């Protein structure tokens, strides 16, 4: 756990980081005690059924993690630690805030965007082909696609990509940036969120910000601070993880998993099946700063045969649960196009299940299928050992990925 090596990127004499699909997970077993980087004891929960319980059982919540008596869970708090965020409130209060945006993210609502997202995908591939090989597929594809989608959904035309990247890097920083730098970036980001809200109050449109403002006005209980945090949270969540997943999926598909490329091109159903398996088996990042999705018990709870006392911090290790051999057999090489044997927990479960799950799925399916169809000979131009990774954040993905065709 060398914090310095991770923060400085290159590492001093350390072996290159393995691609995320090669990451080793905790051996599933009963809940066991570990420690967060802050030294706070944490119950690590790794079995499929136990992870499900942690995420759905109302005796565990997010808000108790930020209660006055709570032990510290982050060394350097980032956007995910904001107590007023959708992620960190529970129960009725959470439901009321989530309702302001939930309708825009149902499978049906998302499906309406499909033709438009497909056109963005095609336009980016056109540009990539025009530019010619070799190319950096992160700069040309995996980053601009989700940014374009969330910008359109939220009506953020003209949002500067560099500023957005700066804010996102700080929003999800673990050790890449100082507390002060994160604080400054988040203050700037919040000011941006406030200005978008003010502008949309004056001139409402057909975008997500306008509709959430209408819903919040009807509800009446939602604070301005919650709205701002929600808007900037949507901006980050709306593109960061999709970019990460797509980048890491391509590291696998253009490398170890290259044999599947042709079938991915064949039809959208194959791409949809592969998307589910990739979401399951390729984690978003290393678990060294966050061993799972955190919750805190509000009373004693028995999980997987272990009684976890009230007030304990619990980490649902979704990466381990997603490959629990009791539930999932086989690996990506053999199962890429098979239906999932059980639900995967990459998007979580329970009240805080990822709002953008359907949007992410659609972007990934289209991005993989169309790219494989248009560029059947696409391949990595350099070995994966030479990948320059974005480090020190909750997620890990290639900073750049050189490809040729």
């Amino acid at each position, binding site marked *: 756990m060398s914090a310095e090596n991770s923060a400085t990127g290159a590492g001093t004499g350390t072996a290159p980081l393995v691609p995320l699909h090669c990451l080793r997970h905790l051996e599933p077993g009963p809940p066991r005690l570990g420690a967060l980087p802050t030294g706070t004891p944490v119950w690590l929960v790794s079995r499929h059924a136990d992870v*499900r*319980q942690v*995420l*759905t*059982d*109302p005796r565990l919540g997010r808000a108790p993690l930020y209660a006055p008596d709570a032990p510290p869970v982050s060394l350097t708090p980032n956007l995910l630690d904001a107590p007023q965020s959708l992620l960190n409130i529970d*129960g*009725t209060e959470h*439901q009321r805030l*989530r*309702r302001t945006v*939930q*309708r825009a*993210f*149902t*499978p*049906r609502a998302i499906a309406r965007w499909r033709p438009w997202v497909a056109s963005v995908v095609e336009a980016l591939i056109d540009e990539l082909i025009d530019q010619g090989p070799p190319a950096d597929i992160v700069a040309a594809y995996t980053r601009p696609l989700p940014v374009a989608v969330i910008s359109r959904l939220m009506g953020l035309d003209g949002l500067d990509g560099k500023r957005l990247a700066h804010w996102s890097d700080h929003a999800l920083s673990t050790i890449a940036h100082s507390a002060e730098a994160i604080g400054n970036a988040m203050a700037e980001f919040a000011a941006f969120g406030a200005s978008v809200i003010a502008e949309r109050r004056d001139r409402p449109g057909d975008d997500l910000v306008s509709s959430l403002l209408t819903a919040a006005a009807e509800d009446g209980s939602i604070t301005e601070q919650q709205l701002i945090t929600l808007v900037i949270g949507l901006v980050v969540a709306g593109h960061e993880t999709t970019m990460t997943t797509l980048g890491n999926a391509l590291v696998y598909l253009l490398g170890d998993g290259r044999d599947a490329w042709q079938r991915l091109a064949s039809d959208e159903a194959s791409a949809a099946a592969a998307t589910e398996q990739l979401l399951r088996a390729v984690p978003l990042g290393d678990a060294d700063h966050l061993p799972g999705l955190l919750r805190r018990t509000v009373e004693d709870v028995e999980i997987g045969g272990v009684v976890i006392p009230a007030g304990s911090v619990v980490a649902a290790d979704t990466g381990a649960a997603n490959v629990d051999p009791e539930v999932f057999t086989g690996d990506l090489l053999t199962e890429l196009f098979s239906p999932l044997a059980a*639900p995967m927990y990459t*998007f*979580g*479960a*329970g*009240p805080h*299940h990822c*709002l953008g*799950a359907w949007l992410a799925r659609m972007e990934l399916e289209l991005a993989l299928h169309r790219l494989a169809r248009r560029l059947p000979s696409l391949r990595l131009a350099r070995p994966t050992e030479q990948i320059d990774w974005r480090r020190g954040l909750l997620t890990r993905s290639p900073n750049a990925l050189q490809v040729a065709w």
Partner: protein
Amino acid sequence: MTAGPQAGADAVVVRVDRDRCIGSGMCALSAPGSLALGADGLAEPVAGHGADGEELTPELTEAVDFCPVEALTLYSARGGHRIAPAE
């Protein structure tokens, strides 16, 4: 126990697609008279909503609308046809 005119003209039953439900609990919070979370963390219809049908309440309509994974479907208790969401 009965909240409405059982098997009346407007009675509905609600079905939960348990393969889809991710146990968000949204429905149980917005329509506690119609849906609850079971021991396995997944939603279940309450009382008549699972069998003979109950009156359709605005809360239930809303629960169906707001399910994050569209796991809820409303059917007419009498005719058996689907009421919401639209096909």
